[in-house]
């Protein structure tokens, strides 16, 4: 008569998405403790509205939408009020100055990933969300648009600009990186690719 195993049921429901939720929060917020708090808040909210989830959308879409909203709330609460529209304007005049990506390719995978994480943390939040959802989590464009509650065209445009900005940051950081650590054998890395 009474639903007593809701917590157990929810645990098995959330298990496949647990990592995705946590790392989405981590890559958006950039701090482990913030990500833990935010992801925990997200899971708790999902648990509270678990009864009302009727399966109209895919569980992943539903959960990432909650995670997205939690991140936005968290940013507003802990980093001051951030106008996402203003951040959008900030990146509008971005120009891709260099097409030469070869220096990035010359790095080892672990170094590239380190650079990528650093570059992500330098991206404005407005661009971080599409990169994290579409590129890091591999979510389809239409679902990512649903999660962010924006038209798919807006999402594609934002994603394109985010990638360009990310590329610029990567190249800039890579030069700094190389100046700090010049032991990388560029020729070997290119051949491996």
């Amino acid at each position, binding site marked *: *008569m009474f*639903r007593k195993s*809701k917590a157990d049921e929810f*645990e098995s429901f959330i298990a496949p998405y647990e990592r995705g939720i946590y790392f989405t929060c981590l890559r958006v917020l950039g701090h482990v403790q913030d990500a833990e708090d935010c*992801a*925990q808040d997200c899971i708790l909210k999902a648990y509270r509205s678990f*009864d009302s989830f009727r399966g109209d959308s895919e569980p992943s879409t539903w959960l990432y939408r909650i995670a997205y909203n939690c991140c*936005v*709330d968290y940013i507003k609460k802990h980093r001051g009020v951030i106008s996402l529209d203003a951040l959008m304007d900030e990146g509008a005049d971005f120009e891709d100055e260099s097409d030469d*990506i070869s220096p990035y390719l010359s790095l080892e995978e672990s170094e590239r990933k380190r650079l990528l994480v650093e570059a992500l943390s330098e991206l404005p939040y407005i661009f971080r969300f599409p990169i994290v959802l579409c590129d890091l989590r591999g979510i389809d464009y239409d679902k990512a648009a649903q999660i962010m509650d924006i038209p798919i065209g807006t999402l594609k445009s934002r994603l394109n600009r985010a990638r360009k900005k990310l590329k610029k940051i990567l190249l800039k950081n890579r030069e700094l990186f190389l100046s700090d650590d010049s032991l990388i054998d560029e020729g070997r890395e290119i051949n491996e690719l």
Partner: protein
Amino acid sequence: MNCNDARTLLEAKERTPLQEEQLNEHLKSCEDCRSYSTYRLDCLTLDDETPLPESFKSNWKQSIKEEEKMKKPVLSPKVKRILSLAAVFVLVIAGTIITRDSTAPSKTDDYNYNDYAMPPTGLVSGYGNADYALDEYALYEEAAPQSAEKSASMDATMRSARDLAGGQAEVKSPAKLIRTVDMSISTREFDEDYQKIIASLKKLGGYVESSTINSKTSYRRQADLYLRVPQEKLDKFLEDIGGLGRQLSFSESAEDVSEKYADTETRLETQQEKMKRLQQMLSKATSIEELIIIETSIADTQYQIDSLTGSLKGMDSRVNYSPVYISLIEERPADIEQVKEASLGERITSAFLNSIKSIKDFLSDSLVFVVSIAPIIIALLVVIIIIHRAIKKRRNKNEK
């Protein structure tokens, strides 16, 4: 393969071996696409080797357990639905029972009510109140178990009592005697018997002082009549209506007001004598003070004379026109059935038919109740929907 095709394939979740081969060929020759491919792979595998913090996992599980402990047991949606339906059912039943009398048509002194085939307006005067304590249900409970024979016997006994009261009155023959009759009659032919009572009254020169007809339920009516019958024709009137329906109760009383009447007459004569003397004194008065005192006395005396005259007229009226209270109660088919000794088959049939009728009556009453509260329910629903939408909108806004 161009760069667009290559990027589409890179973003695709599955690729055929041929596509894979073509893509590799393209990547060897295109540094941009190779860079994009590396970027995609780095992104997708960025967190693969990073373990999930143990503290995170244990913390959210702990939070959920605490949340569950704090939360009261929640009824499952199925139980909620059943309880909602039960609540609606109880509401309709309770509402129907409470409001069935108030929603049934009720008419009091409305002689234009066609269904009741009321007597002509001229026969009835609609003032006064002839309501008196008559518990019709108690009477029915009392009368129902009795057989038709017992009922007939009861009627005969009542007639004897009536004859005795009337007889005593005739033997004693007081000068001023007020005879009052109080009776209740149960009838199957309510309209006809009502007409007969009024016709007999009119024929004997009496009149209706007040008449009240109540029909609180749709299947039983009751007429409370306060009649005035010329005293010398009271016995004839009682004889006329004696054959109507079943008499449930009968009482007759005779009040001797001769002494009181004589006293009042004497007091009146005294006051009249006093008035004559005062008028003589008034004609002889010399000062204004005397005039004022005498005129005040005249006014008081006149008041006494009027009061005593009214009292005498009232007594005369009650002596000459005997008050007769009649409660005419309509019998239900079920009541009629109860009177006679029924066989088992008849009782079963009667009970079954009664149940069907009760269900029918209840359903019709329920329908009336539901229709009557429909505007309130609709208004409440509109308010609830508006509030619900406003809350939802606000919540969504906050989430965004």
